C-alpha cells in the first residue's frame, strides 16, 4: 500500500503496546449504527505508472491553444527557476510558520514579499497573501468599513469598470455583514465623472478604483482618489501588479494616494492553471494595519539580539480572537506568494517593466492588426494597458467558437457582463504573444469575418 511504511511485525508490536488484538478495535468508540462497510463506488488503486499515464492522456486531450484571453488571468512567461525552487520540499511541505525558529526560511520569504508588494503599490505594509484577487477585494471592502470610523457608512462605491466577478464575489461575502456595493456608471471606458458628482454628499465608507480597469482602459485615478477623499471615503485601489512596474502606484494617486491596494497576484509568476491556486495581495497605509486581515510577518530580534522573523500582530486573527477576529482566514496562499517573490527577484524592477512595456506594445499591435479587418472596430478612446475592447459586426460567441476550433482563444465575450456594449470582445496580448502569433490570429479572424455573417 502506498505511503504507509509499517511492516507486519511493526503492526503486531504496536497493537500489543496499545493492548488490542487488531486495528478494528481502535474504532470501537464509533457507535455500530454509524459504521460503514467501506467506500463503495471508488475505483481500485492505480500504480504510479498507471496514474502518470492517465493524467498525461487527459492533459494532452486539453491541448495548448494560442491564448489572447485575459479577463483576470494572464499568460505570462514564468522563468524555470521560479517553480523549481518554490517546489523544493522545504517550502512545499512546510506548515504555516507558527514555530518561528524552525521556519525562518518561509518567514524571511514573506518579509521580502511584503517589502516588494509595498514598494510596487507605493503603500506601507502588506500582508502575507489572501486567497485570490476577488476575495482580496471583498476583504478590502470589509477592512474599509472597519477602518472608516469617521463616517460609519456600510456603503462602498464600486465602478462598473471593476471586474464583474470581483463584484459578484464581494457582494456575496459582504451580504452576510450588511455591506452594500453601489455601482458607479462608466462612460467611454472610464468612470463617468458627471454621474459621480451626483453622488456627492451621500456617505460611503470607501470608493473602489480599478486601474487598469477590467476592460483594459486606464481610469482617471487622480481625480477619483481626490473626489473620494473629499467625501471622507477611503480609496481601495484594485490593480494588476505587472502594470505597476510602469504605471503610477496607488500610493501616488491624487493628492494623498489610495489607502488600500489589492488585486490578483497571478501575473507574478503563477501559471494560469485553470484558475488557481493564485494569490490575492493586500497592502495598506501604516495607520490601517491593525484592521488588515490575514497573516503578517515582522522582523524582530532573538535572545542574543540577532535579527529574525516571526508572525506578528496576531491579535487580529481567528486563532486568538475567535469570533472577534478581523476575518476567518487561516490558511492563505503561502507557496504561491513564495513563487511570486522568486519571480519578482529574478525580474527586478527593470525586468518587470520590460514585461509591462512588451504587453502594452503587443496589445497595441494586436488591436491594430484586428481593427484593420472590416467589421472590427475599437471601442473607447481611453488609453489601455494590455487589454482592449473590440466591437464585431456579429455576435461574439460564434466567432470565438470558430476561433477555438482553430486552436485560438480569441478573447472574452463581454455580452453577458456588459450587454450595453453590444457585440464586444475583450482581447489581450502579453509579452508572450509576438508578431507571428498576432498575424495568425488576424488571418483567422479575417477569414471568418470575410465569410457571410
Amino acid at each position: 500500500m502506498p505511503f504507509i511504511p509499517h511492516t507486519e511485525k511493526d503492526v503486531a508490536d504496536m497493537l500489543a503496546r496499545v493492548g488490542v488484538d487488531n486495528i478494528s478495535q481502535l474504532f470501537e468508540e464509533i457507535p455500530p449504527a454509524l459504521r460503514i462497510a467501506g467506500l463503495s463506488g471508488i475505483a481500485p488503486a492505480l500504480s504510479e505508472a498507471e496514474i502518470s499515464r492517465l493524467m498525461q492522456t487527459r492533459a494532452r486531450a486539453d491541448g495548448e491553444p494560442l491564448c489572447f484571453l485575459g479577463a483576470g488571468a494572464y499568460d505570462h512567461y514564468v522563468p524555470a527557476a521560479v517553480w523549481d525552487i518554490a517546489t523544493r520540499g522545504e517550502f512545499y511541505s512546510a506548515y504555516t510558520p507558527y514555530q518561528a525558529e524552525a521556519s525562518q526560511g518561509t518567514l524571511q520569504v514573506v518579509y521580502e514579499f511584503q517589502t516588494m508588494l509595498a514598494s510596487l503599490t507605493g503603500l506601507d505594509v502588506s500582508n502575507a497573501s489572501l486567497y485570490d484577487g476577488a476575495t482580496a477585494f471583498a476583504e478590502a471592502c470589509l477592512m474599509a468599513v472597519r477602518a472608516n470610523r469617521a463616517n460609519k457608512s456600510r456603503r462602498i462605491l464600486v465602478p462598473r469598470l471593476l471586474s464583474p466577478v470581483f463584484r459578484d464575489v464581494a457582494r456575496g461575502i459582504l451580504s452576510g455583514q450588511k455591506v452594500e456595493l453601489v455601482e458607479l456608471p462608466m462612460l467611454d471606458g472610464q468612470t463617468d465623472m458627471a454621474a459621480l458628482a451626483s453622488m456627492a454628499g451621500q456617505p460611503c465608507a470607501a470608493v473602489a478604483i480599478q486601474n487598469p480597469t477590467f476592460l483594459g482602459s486606464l481610469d482617471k485615478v487622480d481625480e477619483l482618489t481626490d473626489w473620494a477623499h473629499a467625501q471622507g471615503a477611503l480609496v481601495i485601489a484594485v490593480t494588476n501588479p505587472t502594470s505597476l512596474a510602469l504605471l503610477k502606484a496607488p500610493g501616488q494617486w491624487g493628492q494623498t494616494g489610495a489607502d488600500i491596494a489589492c488585486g490578483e497576484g497571478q501575473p507574478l509568476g503563477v501559471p494560469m492553471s485553470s484558475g488557481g491556486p493564485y494569490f490575492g495581495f493586500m497592502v495598506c497605509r501604516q495607520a490601517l494595519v491593525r484592521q488588515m486581515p490575514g497573516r503578517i510577518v515582522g522582523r524582530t530580534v532573538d535572545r542574543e539580539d540577532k535579527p529574525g522573523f516571526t508572525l506578528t500582530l496576531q491579535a487580529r486573527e481567528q486563532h486568538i480572537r475567535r469570533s472577534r477576529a478581523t476575518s476567518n482566514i487561516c490558511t492563505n496562499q503561502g507557496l504561491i506568494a513564495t513563487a511570486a517573490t522568486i519571480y519578482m527577484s529574478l525580474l527586478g524592477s527593470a525586468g518587470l517593466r520590460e514585461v509591462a512595456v512588451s504587453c502594452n506594445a503587443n496589445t497595441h499591435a494586436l488591436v491594430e492588426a484586428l481593427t484593420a479587418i472590416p467589421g472590427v472596430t475599437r471601442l473607447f478612446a481611453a488609453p489601455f494597458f494590455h487589454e482592449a475592447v473590440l466591437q464585431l459586426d456579429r455576435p461574439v460567441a460564434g466567432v470565438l467558437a470558430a476561433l477555438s476550433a482553430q486552436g485560438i482563444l480569441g478573447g472574452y465575450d463581454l455580452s453577458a457582463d456588459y450587454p450595453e456594449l453590444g457585440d464586444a470582445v475583450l482581447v489581450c496580448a502579453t509579452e508572450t504573444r509576438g508578431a507571428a502569433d498576432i498575424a495568425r490570429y488576424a488571418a483567422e479572424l479575417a477569414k471568418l469575418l470575410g465569410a457571410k455573417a
Partner: protein
Amino acid sequence: MKEPLIFEYESAGRKGFTPPSESASRIPEEWLRKDEPVLPRASELEVVRHFTRLSQLNFSIDTHFYPLGSCTMKYNPRVCNRLAMLPQFLSRHPLGPVEHGQGFLQTMYELQEMLQVVVGMHAVSLTPMAGAQGEYAGVAMIRAYHEARGDHARTEIIVPDAAHGTNPATAVVCGCDVVEIPTRSDGDIDLDRLRAAVGPQTAGIMLTNPSTLGVFERQIAEIAAIVHGAGGLLYYDGANLNAIMGKTHPGAMGFDVVHMNLHKTFSTPHGGGGPGSGAVGVNQRLQPFLPVPYVQKQGDQYVWATGKECPQTIGRLSAFMGNAGVLLRAYIYMRMLGARGMQRVSEFAVLNANYLMASLIDAGFDAAFPERRASHEFVITLKQIERDTGVTAMDFAKALLDHGFHAPTTYFPLLVPECLLIEPTESESRHTLDGFVAAMISIRDMAYTDAARVKEAPLTMPVRRLDDVRAAKQPDLVWLPGAAT
C-alpha cells in the same frame, strides 16, 4: 542572520532574467510611474542560491517529523506535484472553452464523485480555496436554506468550546451570533447544555468529529436529533477526516453539510501556509445552495454549472473555480489509494496515534483523556511537569526542535492546560514515533535536573527564541532602502 535579505544583493541595473523586449509603451505620461519600485537586483544564480538557502532554514515534512495536531502533516507524494504540473494543465486558461478542457473537467467531476462517497453526501463543490472558506460556504448555505424557507429568525450558530478558532470567526463573517457550549470532562459535549441552547433561533451547529480533543464524539446521533429537532442543521468541519475514512462518514452521523481539507486528508502540500482547498459536500436539501461553479456531465460532455443553472446558489467564492492545481493533486492521491487505500490511511493514522499515546503514557506522561481511545490524534497535558519544574508546553515545543522534531500543536485545544495536541499521521514509521518518545523523555529528564537549560531551547536553530512583544510593539514589516539589517 544566516542569509542576507535579497535586496542586499544590490547591483544597480543587474537583473536575473531578461524578457524579450525592444518596444516602448504607448501610455500617456500622466499615468506613468516616476519612481522605480524597490525590487531586487540580483543575478539568476544569486536568486537561486538565496532562496535555496532560505528553504534550508525551514523544517518541513520532507526533512522532519511534523506531528502538528489538527494539521495532518502526512507525506506529500512527489508524483502528485509532477502530474499536476503537466504543461497543458498549467497553461489552461480558466475561462477557456470546455472543448479545450475535457480532460481537466472530467478529472474534477470524478474528484467530486469520490469525495461524495468519502463523506456520504449527495453533491460536492470544489470551489472553496481553504478550510475557512469551506466553513464560510457551509454556514452561508445553512443561512440560505433557512432564508429560502422564510425562517428568518435562525441566526445563531452553536459551537463547542473546543472548536477551532475559524468556526466562531466564520459564523460572525456570515452574520450569525455564536453560542458556545461546554465539553464534559470525558471529552464529549454536554447534552443538557446543548438542549438548553437550541431553539427557534438556531441556524445550526458546527462540529468536528473526532473532536479537536482527539476523541470520537460518541453521542453524535443524539446531537443530530436534538439540533434537527429544533429545526437547525449540522455542519461538519472536516479537519479530522483522516481518522474515519471508510469507517464512518458525516452522512451516517447525520450531518447536512461538510467541508474537507484536501491539504490535510488528501495530502496536498501545506506550502508554508497554503494554498489549501476546502471542498464542500451537502445532502439533498442543501444542494440548490452549493457554491458555483462545479462540474456536471451532459451526455458525453463535462460542463460547468454556474449561477444560471443554479439560481439559489450562495454564489461564487473565487474569481474562477478555486484552487484547481490543489484539486488535481488530491485527485491523483485518491486514485493512487483507491477505496481500500483510503480506509487503510485512517487505520494506520489511528494506529500510530494510539501507539504514540500508549508509549507516552507508559513513559509516565499524562494523556488528557486516558480512558478514551485516541482518534488520529490525542492530547497530553504537561501540567504536572510545569508545576514541579516550571517547564511549560512551549518549552517542550522549543526543546523538541533541538531534537530534530517539529513541535506538536501547543496550547490548543484551549480547554486543556499546558497541552500538546499530537498527530503523527499514517505515513510515519514506528521507528520515528519511538524516537519522538525518547526525545520527550529526555526533555522531561532535563526539566527535573536543569529546567533553566530547557528554557534556553532552541539552541540549534538558525535563531534563538524571538522577541514577539517587540515584533508587535515596533512593527518592522517591510525593508526600507538604507535601513540597518
